[in-house]
Structures are given as structure tokens and as C-alpha cells.
């Protein structure tokens, strides 16, 4: 009976109560979507590279090596020699290795030299492979494969000719050896999307007439002659390593770090990504903080609305009292209302969240490379909901206490 009357009282104030519910559910939704994006961004970020056990490069910090080898940000401090690479590759613990050579660029996009194994071995998001969208992987020396982002932003298609520039912001171009797009990769949401991929031999080929970063004047080897040359690289920038048994990772890592003939570093990609996230993750924490503030603001708004409805409901409370309701019952009715409003808001916010996420998920994935998981609510969400209901009970205490005083003091004298 009380519940029924409390609900019909709320229903009678449908517009105010409805607006409150909408305001609260939107702020809850904001909080939950920030939280979802945050965790999804974290998963997507730490899943940028997976199933690679070690990354090796010249002696550097793990974050730096990670940044240039996987994210293609910044430069390698040094290269490692092909011989060292072969030494690592020939270790019996090593299952596979993919060499990477960096240093050149095309219109702001990094050019990466590697072999075809890269496409088979590079995995992201817990084991997804890179797939080719159009064309084929490089067959000819001067074939390039474009990441989806490069092709889209530059408007390139299969057979588009392109010239690779030396270095990253250099005006000297390898214009004597033009390339041709042979394949375009599918969108991955990883740095691969923004990479121009060529064969290691091609990197070697365009540097035939170069020495220590500058073109040797007057020397111009014809393309036909270059094609006949042995184009095995002398140096590479980094290599991705897979081991036969996970148990051997740390031994192999130590062996590489202590390799006597050259200063090399081997890092565990997972650990390095975590370390890197600690730097990037600050922004997400900030967003989380803001959405918590939004929830608090809404709670205060709810209290304000309850306060303002008190004066018009004073009459109603006097009737309850006259019928024999105790002041506690009157307070209980108000709190019941607050609980009902917050539960309704939570339900609405969950519906809104899943509705908007299921619509936006493909778009977010495509544009930002973040796969938002539209799954069941996490335990953490449940905690948040419980906390919210508790908080709304707490804030509704303020108007309820006022109602308590009204109902004790008003008696028969009701001012309307």
C-alpha cells in the first residue's frame, strides 16, 4: 500500500521525477562509458603486439625500444648488425624471428623494411593476424605494402607510384628508385596502419649509393645492376622474436643482454607496454575523475529537486501524519522515493550505455582502434551502482530530515 502510494505520488510528479531520472542516468552513463573506454583503451593498447616473446634492438631503455620498434615513435639509438641477428636467430630456444629496419619515411609515414614473415608473425589483440585487404604482399624489389591508414589518408590505391624519402624529415629522396603499391592491409587499430612496409632488400637497395646518411656524389648505380646485387642487409633496427618454450624467455633475454660482441637489449613487450601505459594512462584517470564529479553534481541536483518539492508536499505529509503515520514513515517514504529514482536511473543508464555502445562500437574501433567490449556489466560496475544507491540514500537524508521536522511541528497547522 505504502509502496503503491509512493509510486503513484512519484508518477504524479512525472515531469520533475522523469527529468531527474534522465539527468542522473546520463551522468551515470557518462561515467560508465568513460570507464569502459578506459579499460578498452588499456586492453587495446597492451594488445598492440601479442604473441611476440621478445623484441631486440640496440642497447636502449625498454620503453624507448618499444616506442620505436612497435609504435614507430622516435629513433633507434643504433642498429644491430645482421650477424648479431643471425646469432640470435640460430639460438636453439628461438622459434622464429622477424627483422625490422627503420629510418626512412614517406610523406610523414614511417617506412619499415621487413620480410614476409612479419605478416604471419605480427599478432595483435590476443592473436589476431594482419590480413591483406587489396592486392598482394611484395613480390618485386620495389613493391610496397601500405597500412590501411596510409592508404586512406594519402588516397593511394594499388599501383600508385611512390618515392621514399631518406630519414624522417629529410628533403633528400630516393627518387632514383620509385616504388609501387602492391598491397593494402586491413585496418588493425595498431601502428601498422600508419606504416609503409617494404622488403629488407628494398631498404638495402635504396641505400646502395648512400654512405653515412648522405648520397655519394656522382655515384648512380642503375636499377638493373642493383637488382643483380646481393641485397642482404648489413644492419637492422630491431627484431621480433618468438621462442619455442616460454620457460626459456628469461634465459634468452639475459643471453641477449649480455651478448659480448654487440650491445643489445631484449625486452618483454607485455611488460614494456604496461610501463608505457603508466605514462599514457594519466589522461584516462583525469576523465574518470571528471565523470565522478559529474555524478556528484547530479546527486546534489537530485537533493535540490527533493528540497524544492518538499514545500509542495508538506500538505501531503500532514495528511499522512493525520492518518497515523509516524514521522519515520514520512521520512521513509521520501527515502524510498530517492532509492526508486536512483534504481530507475541505473536501469536507464545501462540501457542507454549498451544501446549507444552497440551503435558506436564499430565506429570507435575504426577511427581510434579501440575495441570497446559490449559485454555484461563487470563486478566493478555493480559496486559503482551499490555505491550510487547508498550515496543517493545518504543525500536524500537531508530533505528527509527537513520533512521530519515539518511533520513533527506542522500538526494541524498547515501553511500552503
Amino acid at each position, binding site marked *: *500500500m505504502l509502496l503503491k*502510494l509512493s509510486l503513484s*505520488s512519484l508518477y504524479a510528479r512525472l515531469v520533475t521525477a522523469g527529468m531527474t531520472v534522465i539527468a542522473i542516468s546520463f551522468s551515470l552513463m557518462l561515467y560508465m562509458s568513460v570507464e569502459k573506454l578506459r579499460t578498452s583503451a588499456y586492453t587495446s593498447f597492451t594488445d598492440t603486439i601479442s604473441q611476440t616473446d621478445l623484441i631486440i634492438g640496440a642497447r636502449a631503455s625498454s620503453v624507448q625500444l618499444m616506442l620505436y620498434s612497435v609504435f614507430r615513435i622516435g629513433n633507434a639509438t643504433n642498429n644491430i648488425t645482421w650477424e648479431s641477428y643471425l646469432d640470435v636467430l640460430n639460438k636453439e630456444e628461438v622459434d622464429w624471428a622477424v627483422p625490422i629496419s627503420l629510418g626512412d619515411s614517406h610523406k610523414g609515414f614511417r617506412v619499415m623494411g621487413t620480410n614476409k614473415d612479419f605478416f604471419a608473425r605480427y599478432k595483435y589483440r590476443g592473436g589476431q593476424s594482419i590480413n591483406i585487404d587489396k592486392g598482394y604482399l611484395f613480390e618485386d624489389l620495389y613493391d610496397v605494402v601500405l597500412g590501411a591508414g596510409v592508404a586512406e589518408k594519402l588516397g593511394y590505391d594499388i599501383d600508385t607510384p611512390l618515392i621514399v624519402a631518406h630519414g624522417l624529415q629529410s628533403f633528400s629522396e630516393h627518387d632514383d628508385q620509385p616504388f609501387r603499391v602492391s598491397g593494402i592491409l586491413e585496418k588493425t587499430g595498431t601502428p601498422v596502419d600508419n606504416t609503409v612496409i617494404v622488403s629488407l632488400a628494398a631498404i638495402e637497395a635504396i641505400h646502395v649509393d648512400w654512405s653515412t646518411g648522405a648520397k655519394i656524389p656522382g655515384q648512380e648505380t642503375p636499377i638493373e645492376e642493383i637488382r643483380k646485387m646481393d641485397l642482404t642487409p648489413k644492419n637492422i633496427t630491431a627484431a621480433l622474436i618468438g621462442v619455442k618454450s616460454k620457460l626459456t624467455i628469461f634465459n634468452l633475454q639475459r643471453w641477449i643482454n649480455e651478448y659480448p660482441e654487440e650491445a643489445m637489449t631484449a625486452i618483454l613487450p607485455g611488460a614494456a607496454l604496461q610501463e608505457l601505459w603508466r605514462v599514457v594512462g594519466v589522461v584516462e584517470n583525469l576523465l574518470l575523475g571528471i565523470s565522478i564529479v559529474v555524478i556528484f553534481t547530479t546527486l546534489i541536483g537530485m537533493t535540490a529537486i527533493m528540497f524544492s518539492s518538499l514545500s509542495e508536499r508538506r500538505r501531503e505529509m500532514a495528511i499522512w501524519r*493525520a*492518518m*497515523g503515520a509516524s514521522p519515520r514513515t514520512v521520512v521513509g517514504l521520501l527515502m524510498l522515493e530517492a532509492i526508486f529514482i536512483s534504481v530507475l536511473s541505473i536501469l536507464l543508464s545501462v540501457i542507454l550505455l549498451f544501446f549507444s555502445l552497440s551503435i558506436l562500437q564499430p565506429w570507435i574501433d575504426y577511427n581510434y582502434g579501440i575495441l570497446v567490449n559490449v559485454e555484461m556489466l563487470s563486478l566493478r560496475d555493480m559496486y559503482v551502482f551499490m555505491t550510487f544507491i547508498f550515496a543517493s540514500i545518504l543525500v536524500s537524508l537531508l530533505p528527509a530530515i527537513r520533512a521530519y521536522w515539518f511533520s*513533527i511541528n*506542522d500538526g*494541524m497547522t498547515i501553511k500552503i
Partner: protein
Amino acid sequence: MDENIIKIDSVRFYWSKKSSFKIFVPNFEINKGEKVLLLGESGSGKTTLLSLICGFLNPLSGSISINGSTINKLSSKTKDEHRADNIGIIFQQFNLLPYANVIDNIVLPLYFSKVRSANVTNQRESALNLCKQLRLPDDIDQYKASSLSVGQQQRVAVARALIGNPSLVIADEPTSSLDTDAQQIFLDLMFEQISNNKSTLLMVSHDRSLAERFDRLIDINEVLTRED
């Protein structure tokens, strides 16, 4: 058994010591079954007296006894229960919960009083029966309280005050929002029902012309003294 349904003895009340409004009620008694009209201008302390009788306010000294129990000695919970069991209240206006339907409004006191709900076998039926006797439309149960006219609302309030046969009905100027014709009809119906129920009626008004219907007419100034 005590023949007084209301017995007030040396009651003193004020909101605060600084307040200019201080009242003293030396002695005030109403017998069971009496119909009493309490006359007084606004601001004379009528409503405060009613609040004391209903147990909304506690006297600073003295005793108030309603239907045999000294209510100012009761805990606030028991006092609320005592009110629900013994007193039906009719306000000046806005008696009903506007969002609830008529029947829910009428049976509301039964929810708080075991005594009164024990007197009613079928809540809905007796509510409808009261409505019928108060000449409310037959399909009154279809209406929301807010859709009724003021006169109808006051009659529903009478039904609510009488359901479950409480021994005392307190009415605070129930006719002041009605025009003269409606007043007469309302009073006829209310008196008829109160007589049927054998309840005691204490009604407050400033309209001396209503006096002939009542057993006794009391001027508020005879009941209480102002201690300004």
C-alpha cells in the same frame, strides 16, 4: 468506564519561551457521543488546541486524556497509533492525496490502525458503502482524488474519517471552502453518518449560525487563556 472522550487538565503550551503565543487550558471535557462546536476567530489558538488533542504537539505541563489514555505520557510511536485508532480528522481543505484514487484515500487510516481495520471486513466494500451514503457518485471508485469537486473531496474526507468507526471525529472548519448550499448538504450528510457511527464530533468553526445542529457550543475563549 470514563464518560469523557476528551479530558484536558491544566495544560500549558508554547512554542518557545520568547514566543508571544502562550496558552493555558485549565479544564476542557467532552463526553462520549457529544457533538460540540468550538467557536473562535482565526489566531485564537483553535488549531493549536486541536493539534494538542490529536497528539501532534506535546503540552509542557498538565495532561491530555483521549478515550481513556493520557496521550502526553505515550511514546511518539504509541501516540501515532493511538491517533490512528481513535481519531478521524477532517481538514479545512486539501484533505486527500491527489494522486491516489478515492478508495485508496478512504482506506488509508486502516493501514495505520489495527483496531479500525478489525472493524471493517471488506475495506473496498465499506468504503464504497460510505461513499454511497454520502451521496457520492456510484462510479466514484473510477476517480482520482484530484478530479473531484471541493464538495465531493470534503465528503470523501468524511468517509475517510469515519471508516473503521473511530470514537472521535475532529473537523477543522470543514465547510469553510464550500458555499452556503453545499455547506448545508455537507453538514446534513456528515451528521447523519456520525450519528450512525455513534462517534463524538468536535468541530471548529467561526460561523455561529451552525450552532443549532450541535449539542453544545463552546467559545474558545472559555476554554483557554492566552498568557502573553
